[in-house]
């Protein structure tokens, strides 16, 4: 019997154009919480996807309990008692909790003695019992689409336990949770460790590692940098190892200097296609020189507020004013021209046309104005000139400059292009939704710097983010949204992140 339950030796995995894992070797002991620390794109998820059989390594070997194994699919990994909770949950919205959990290993009975029939009654009972046993409360017959993010995560954990997994992989499990939910999750993980399970935690949040992990492997750009005992390593040390240079935790932030009122939202209500009120009677103001941050658990209506202000969604009732001018009924174009810039949450789906060139994408806000076009005829020279300027000013890197098809660019550079394009409009109001999602630390720092700089230049900033750390670091005013309602608006600094978390879960003021 080997000392290690999992060994991955000299693993290399390439994707077209990049080496995701370069000769990585790790060994994990039974019953420990083993953390994988690294930035976005460092290769943590790829490494674990191979342990879970989603990809096969190009070279190297995997040993479970000292025996070499080859996984062709997640089935093979499941058979070796490995389970994984993915960062993006792999759940079918239209199925019940139980149907999702049993999917792939559905219990069968014989109806009329011969017809194979999926036995949901049995599944429901088994799952109810399992959820009681591990303290993961769920109702087996609820539809996934009706559930909160944290409950969906419980379903994912139960999925592993139902498959009798002994090695549990968690991929960025806290990214979407409130501080209280994070506490709850870490307790669950601790409980699982006490039950003798082995846990692998993928994360870029060092504080969590400090709290729960026994050992920590640090990955950078596909390479294993070091493996440390968490108890013997300081937070600063881990951060420096992860990034590769000394990290400055504290963003320089000048004192806010509020100017005139720019955005006034009054009793705003937005309905979705099923006539359900996704934003309910929301009112707030944003001043020039102010960062107003809206925070809440994913899917509570925050992106809909941004879409309603920019005209992407129809407003059911209420008004939106920009510098006192009512723009409630204005078109998207009219609003943009009257001074709104918008960095949308979905870079690929909304923020750019991926099959257009960088040149065209950088000109999306300008193409219809002179000198970009005259009488409807485009002027390509102006497009070229403008995009070259922006590429220079915002340090946008791409293969072929303005002629690059945006689809082939890295996420960070795509985001730079969008932010550059929007900031360049010199708008009075700039709306940022999830501006740093998926970016690495250097890029995040850069975006934060830009947001603060625009604030200091006098723009009103509406920042919508799921990253509580980001909200706490940048905002001057915090609005907390729960089920479409703004439960609390407060100057930043008056609430701790735990208090904010309480509001995020719907606790109202007494």
């Amino acid at each position, binding site marked *: 019997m080997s000392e290690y339950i999992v060994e991955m030796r000299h693993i290399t995995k390439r*994707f077209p154009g990049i080496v995701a894992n370069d000769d990585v070797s790790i060994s994990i002991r039974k019953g420990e919480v083993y953390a994988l620390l690294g930035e976005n794109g460092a290769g943590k998820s*790829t490494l674990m996807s191979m342990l879970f059989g*989603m*990809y096969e390594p190009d070279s190297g070997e995997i040993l479970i309990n000292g025996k070499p194994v080859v996984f062709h*699919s*997640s*089935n093979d990994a*499941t058979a070796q008692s490995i389970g*994984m909770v*993915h960062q*993006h949950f*792999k*759940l*079918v*919205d*239209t*199925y019940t909790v139980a*149907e*999702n959990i049993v*999917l*792939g*290993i*559905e219990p*069968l009975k014989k*109806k009329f003695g011969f*017809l*194979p*029939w*999926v036995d949901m009654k049995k599944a429901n009972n088994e799952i109810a019992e399992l959820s009681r046993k591990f303290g993961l409360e769920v109702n087996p017959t609820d539809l996934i689409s009706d559930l909160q993010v944290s409950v969906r995560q419980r379903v994912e954990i139960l*999925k592993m336990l139902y498959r009798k997994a002994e090695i549990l992989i968690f991929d960025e499990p806290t990214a979407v949770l409130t501080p209280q939910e994070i506490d709850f999750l870490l307790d669950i993980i601790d409980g699982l460790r006490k039950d003798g399970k082995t846990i692998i935690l993928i994360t870029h949040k060092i504080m969590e590692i400090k709290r729960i992990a026994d050992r920590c492997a640090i990955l950078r750009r596909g390479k294993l940098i070091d493996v440390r005992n968490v108890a013997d390593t300081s937070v600063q040390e881990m951060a420096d190892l992860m990034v590769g240079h000394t990290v400055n935790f504290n963003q320089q932030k000048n004192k806010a200097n509020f100017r005139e009122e720019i955005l006034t939202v009054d009793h705003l209500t937005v309905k979705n296609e099923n006539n359900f009120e996704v934003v309910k009677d929301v009112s707030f103001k944003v001043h020039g020189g102010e960062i107003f941050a809206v925070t809440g658990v994913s899917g509570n209506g925050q992106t809909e507020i941004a879409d309603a202000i920019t005209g992407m969604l129809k407003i059911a009732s209420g008004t939106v004013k920009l510098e006192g001018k009512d723009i409630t009924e204005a078109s998207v174009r009219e609003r943009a021209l009257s001074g709104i810039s918008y960095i949308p949450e979905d870079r690929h789906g909304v923020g750019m046309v991926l099959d257009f060139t960088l040149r065209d994408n950088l000109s999306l806000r300008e193409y219809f104005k002179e000198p970009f076009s005259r009488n409807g005829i485009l002027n390509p020279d102006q497009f070229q000139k403008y995009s070259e300027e922006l590429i220079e000013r915002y340090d946008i890197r791409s293969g072929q400059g303005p002629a690059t098809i945006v689809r082939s660019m890295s996420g960070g550079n795509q985001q730079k292009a969008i932010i550059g394009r929007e900031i360049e409009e010199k708008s009075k109001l700039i709306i940022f939704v999830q501006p740093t999602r998926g970016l690495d630390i250097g890029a995040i720092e850069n975006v934060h710097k830009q947001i603060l700089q625009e604030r200091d230049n006098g723009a009103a900033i509406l920042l919508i983010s799921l990253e509580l750390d980001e909200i706490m670091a940048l905002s001057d005013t915090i609005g907390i949204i729960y089920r479409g309602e703004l439960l609390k608006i407060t100057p930043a600094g008056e609430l701790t992140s735990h208090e904010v978390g309480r509001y995020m879960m719907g606790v109202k003021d007494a």
Partner: protein
Amino acid sequence: MEKVFTDGLSFGIPLLIMAVGAIYSEKSGVTNLAVEGFQGVGAFVGSLIAILLIPVMGNGNQWIIYIALAAAAVGAGIYACLHALLCIKFHADQVISGVVINILAVALTSFFTSAANTAINGTASNKFILGVSNRFTVPGLSKIPWIGGLFTNMYPFEIIIIVLVIFFWYLMNKTRYGMRLRACGENPQAVDAAGGDVKKTRWIAVMISGALSGIGGMCFAYSLLANFSPSIYQGYGYLAIAAMIFGNWNIGSTALVCLIFGFAKSGGYQLCIAMGLPSNYSDLFLMLPYVLTMLLLIFFSKKNHPPKAVGQPWDKGKR
């Protein structure tokens, strides 16, 4: 009135099996606009086999019909692999692929019909003459006032289709394969993570889709047309797709829509006869199912929820 029920059923039921086929493909996540082509190829293969068997087994032998139905299912099922190949393996645009499949089907069957006729009897005719399948009347039930027409002069294939529809309802809703198939159309990543094979599931679904559509086409060849010729391409495949949309991708409600289509068609035709209009006017009534479809689409399209992942190719290696 009886005739309305009889004819409505014999039109609506083949439409239903094609719609069920379309549901299989779409529920698995593959957009299927290729029903028209599938049913045509199915009818072609079945008719060709029938034409070849008639001299051997004797004209009027009813067994030929069942063999032809089976051949139609197999032929269209194989032809559907082309759609699967383009959509699942080649990641082609699934709408384009569907249209390509339809255009190619018309060209293939027209060419090979005349080629086969030339080879068999030396004339380059574009038709296989089949005749109409025998009919039967259910004793007792057919005497029921008003709805007795439903059980009068039935084609045997109507019974076969009803049995098949029930079986395929069971397969989709009560079995492991069905559970994974529906999940593939909603969130293929979930199926993959749970150890299912998304591509295989979709391949099978598209082939089932082809086979069922082929049966539908063969039934039309043996009833409405009494032959196989390019006039098999009457847009019935698209009517089946429309029925699937109104039926909200649900086999039960789609069945209802198909029957409504059937009764609208036969009702219009009987009305034309009852009003004593000259035969030219029948063209106007033949338009009815298409007009009805347009109207239904206008009133009901917005409320529908197609499977979430339909039309999106899936790739395991994609990050």
